[in-house]
């Protein structure tokens, strides 16, 4: 009588391990995550505007249709990235995601405080190589450390009314994301 119960108990324990392992492995094994969906649409280290989501077609699920969005799919192996994003009239934000869609940093236009959001994105190793003196002179430039070599920068501009969507899109066309030395 006791033996089948032991087998079941063993199965439950093993099932728990299987469950935890699959949950932890899932982000690495996913083939349709946001990054994978954007690979065919976006060249590396270039800011590209995304098509607005419609009922028939949406690049990613749960995109906010009131926003114009642009993405820079970055790869830091060749060097640091400079991001320059002029602000739209309503609301603009920049969110940084790791390769596995974890939002590790986000800033909006008010927090950025100027007419444009200017940021340097680099790996912790590249940040360590920035000479200290330059770090001080660049005090008004934000330096963001990316936990992964690749990832996504997503720029979003709000169109408070549908008629303002062209304005939001125009603001994004001037946004730039490129390899560049830190000055």
């Amino acid at each position, binding site marked *: 009588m006791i*033996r*089948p119960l032991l*087998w*079941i108990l*063993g*199965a*439950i*324990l*093993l*099932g*728990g*391990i*299987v*469950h935890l*392992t*699959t*949950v932890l492995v*899932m*982000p690495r*094994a*996913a083939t*349709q*995550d*946001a990054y*994978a*969906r954007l690979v065919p649409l976006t060249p590396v280290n270039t800011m590209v505007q995304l098509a607005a989501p*419609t*009922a028939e077609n*949406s690049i*990613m*699920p*749960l995109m*906010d*249709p*009131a*926003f114009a969005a642009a993405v820079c799919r970055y790869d830091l192996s060749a060097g640091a990235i400079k991001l320059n994003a002029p602000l739209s009239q*309503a*609301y603009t*934000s920049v*969110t*940084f*995601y790791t390769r*596995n*869609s*974890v*939002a*590790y*940093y*986000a*800033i*909006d236009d*008010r*927090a950025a405080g100027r007419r444009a959001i200017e940021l340097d994105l680099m790996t912790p190793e590249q940040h360590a190589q920035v000479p200290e003196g330059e770090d001080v002179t660049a005090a008004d430039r934000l330096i963001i450390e990316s*936990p992964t070599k690749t990832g*996504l920068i*997503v720029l979003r501009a*709000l169109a*408070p*009314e*549908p008629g303002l969507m062209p304005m939001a899109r125009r603001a994004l066309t001037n946004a730039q994301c490129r390899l560049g030395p830190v000055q």
Partner: protein
Amino acid sequence: MRLLFGSCFALILAAAIGLGATWLTITRGVAFGSMTIGAWKAWPRSGSVDIDPYARATIARTGELPLGTGDGVAFYARTDDAGNNLDGRCTITVSGVTPAARYWTLTLYDPEGRLVANSIDRHGFTSAEILRDIEGRFTIAVAPRARPGNWLPTGGIERYVLVWRFYDTPIGVATRTAKEAPMPAIARKTCS
């Protein structure tokens, strides 16, 4: 023989339990640290590096990009205040006041996160375009057929999800109660 049978049985059962639990938690969107206000649920931690493994796995499966914490916070409603599933063949009203935020948007999606086709091409409202009464309150009718005032069409689909996103808002991980974040009430009116 018994040992072989027992271990085979245990392995199959373990696989079924483990994979079944993973499937359930990921498709149902189980995540820790949720904040519930009325019918609305938010996971402020999902927009930061403190995101839990379940939310991470869910996001990898769906392919969405969560709203970053410095950007805003998103509330999801799948039911009305009485606990009924949101049914696109019914008329519901969403009314009241919203927490402080520079802008908000309300969007209607199908359960897979796609927008829903409808005759007037409206998928949601922003705080700037909503019609309010003199006290600043608003009522949105979410209904399959046209309504006066703020009409959000459901397209007549069976199930839908409402997502309320607040941008530049003090709501976050530290928010605890409905007093800090008063969310609009969702009430079912009629079903056709």
